């Protein structure tokens, strides 16, 4: 209970400040944060699966990409309205996720992770192979965008992140989250307590897929274009993972902080050119090696340290 109050004490003031930001800062920073918020949802979804269900999904961009491209294709070719595209994108990600997870969750150890990794490569190849339809490497431009106003886009992203984060965080702290965590840590013991581990893990995967896909779809409507480089590439997935670990495994909120930090750092260091990626990776390495709890690990779980 104490922990819950403390989390609220940290999170609420930050949210108020974020909500007031458009009054004080320019479009450039808002644009950056908007991107960061969508990444935040990617990372939080990933953390639910890794931090709680204990499954390492090396291919978060598979789920993101399926959601993004499903929405983009519908809008590009049939000009479906945005809300409908978003809904279909999210559902498509869940369906693709289930198709992947049902066979993959039978595997143990590193094999689940490898399957998810291969899935990304497959998706990427399919998109490039059918370049005539998907736009291939160049991407697919969309007739509709969420908004052309930076402030409006910022609020769309912020509200979306807060709602998704709230749901994921609440879920992680609920009894279901507890069962999920037990399943992730010791599947035999969890099932000896009467829990259907496969069912809980599959559900976690679906929830993770839903928010990843939805966020991917939102992102392409913000950018006005869907391309392999922004929503499917392995590098996208790696960034999502680094953000979640950087922010703090098993915290959900930490994943969001990590994602915004990563996007921000990448931009601030842009003058360094290629070196910027190196610096960000080095920082991530240091945090992972020396502070495995991440940014928020210590803050949210101070009494959890042994």
């Amino acid at each position, binding site marked *: 209970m104490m922990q819950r109050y403390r989390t609220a004490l940290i999170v609420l003031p930050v949210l108020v400040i974020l909500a007031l930001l458009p009054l004080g800062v320019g479009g450039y920073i808002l644009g950056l944060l908007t991107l960061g918020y969508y990444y935040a949802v990617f990372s939080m979804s990933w953390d639910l699966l890794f931090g709680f269900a204990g499954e390492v999904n090396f291919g978060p961009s598979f789920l993101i990409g399926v959601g993004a491209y499903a929405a983009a294709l519908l809008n590009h070719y049939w000009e479906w309205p945005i809300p409908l595209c978003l809904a279909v994108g999210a559902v498509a990600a869940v369906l693709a996720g289930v198709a992947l997870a049902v066979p993959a969750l039978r595997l143990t150890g590193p094999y689940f992770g490898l399957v998810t990794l291969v899935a990304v490569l497959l998706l990427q190849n399919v998109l490039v192979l059918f370049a005539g339809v998907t736009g291939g490497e160049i991407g697919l431009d969309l007739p509709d965008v969420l908004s052309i106003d930076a402030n409006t886009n910022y609020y769309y992203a912020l509200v979306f992140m807060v709602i998704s984060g709230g749901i994921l965080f609440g879920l992680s702290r609920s*009894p279901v989250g*507890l069962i999920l*965590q037990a399943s992730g*840590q010791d599947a035999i013991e969890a099932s*000896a307590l*009467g*829990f259907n581990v496969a069912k809980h893990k599959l559900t976690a995967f679906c929830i993770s897929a839903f928010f990843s896909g939805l966020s991917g779809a939102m992102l392409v409507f913000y950018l006005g274009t869907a391309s392999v480089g922004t929503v499917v590439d392995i590098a996208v997935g790696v960034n999502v993972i680094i953000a979640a670990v950087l922010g703090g495994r098993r915290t959900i909120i930490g994943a969001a902080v990590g994602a915004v930090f990563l996007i921000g750092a990448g931009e601030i260091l842009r003058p360094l050119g290629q070196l910027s990626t190196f610096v960000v990776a080095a920082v991530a390495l240091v945090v992972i090696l020396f502070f495995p709890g991440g940014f928020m690990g210590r803050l949210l779980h101070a009494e959890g340290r042994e």
Partner: protein
Amino acid sequence: MTALLEVDGLIKRFGGLVAVRDISFSIGPGEILGLIGPNGSGKSTVMKCIMGIERPTAGAVKLDGVNVAGWPTHRIARQGVGIVFQHARPLHRQTILEHIQLALLPDNLLMLRTNRQVIRDAEEIAARVGLSRVMHRLPGTLPFADLRRLELAKAIARNPKVVLVDEPFAGLTAAEVADFSELIASFRAEGHAVLLVDHNVKGVAALVDRVLAMYLGEQVAEGTAEAVMRNETVRRVYLGGKIETAARPEREGKGHTPLLDVRSLNVLYGKAVALEDVSIHVGEGEFVSVVGLNGAGKTTLFNAISGLVPFSGAVNWRGESLAGRTPGAIARGGIVQCPETRELFGDMSVRENLDLGGQHLTVDEAGRQLDWLFGLFPILKARQGQAARTLSGGEQQMLAIARALMMRPKLLILDEPTLGLAPVILEQLSKAMERLRQTTDITVLLGEQNVTFALPHADRVYVLEHSRIGWEGDPGRFAEEAGAGYL
């Protein structure tokens, strides 16, 4: 009275190995059955088959009349079987109370809020097992015994018809054992059926109504604890039949520094005491056996000597402390361990495994050593080109010993060489041991739970019991002085 748990003709095969062979028993409401057997006897496999962690090859597991054999674990759990694991891995960030709540939750995806009633029930259970004071603490801050209490609490929370308890008293002090016995007895009072799995009768004798003894997958005796302890087969399994001993006079001269001198060794695994104030010494050329049941601490002792686990106390090798030396340096210094798990390179041939052991020898020396080893274990000569993985268990053990001998150790540490081997192989191994002892001046430290194998070659015997040295002496006096405590 119908039995709550009825196991009928249970068989479990792992590939070619038959781990459980036609085991049948039943437990009624309010009854405690002890399932005992030495390591590798298949008792844990029986437990896993009941819980559904392993799928039985054949046979029935009836729970209150319903055959659950082959069901997934979570369905068997819901049908009314609870298990108290020996080693639990609690969640780090959840309090003790939350752990108990977890066990009280139904398997439901829509449980988004914790029910008040669940919290109250959890608090009640915490009080019953004696965790009230610490229920808001995290598992990492609690002593080992409290973590075991937590496991019991989780089993109580599921309110199962049948409770399986794996090694109920491992790692506990005498006072804690009394507490736990009371808690387990309370299961009986409430009409649950209880299965206690343990290594020997002695540990569970006070608690059980009946005992079933297993050996090499088969049932060897069933009855009251006293009857099973008197049973001839059981005595032979645990104590060996006619024990032949051939101790030689202690070789170390008075005043000499023993080759290996271990003083007041203590080892902790997390919070569990693995070794407590253990002192042993081995003289040059001596053959010393450390006997003790599985879990007594033999492997830990050897690993401490080999520098593989941290310890407090002193380990002196030829009068010099080994503290701070790397395992590699200790092995090069002449202490070579042949581990329980054998650690062969499975995809390499027998010859390659042996050559690896002889890496540091010159070609000539290695050749001579190899010839000598092939004399000691003729079967290995015939198997030279075969992959180590394809050898039988006994041959693998011989290879493991031979590879250790290739390093020309001053002190050879053999950890449970007989584990899982058939009696006929034991005899071959025993002959090789005897030849080794009679024809070389090698010093051997042997860890065994199989007394029949450990005693005949030994000059001196230590009994390791619950992490401490319980007896030391001449193998000839073992049966009368230490044998009873060993059953």
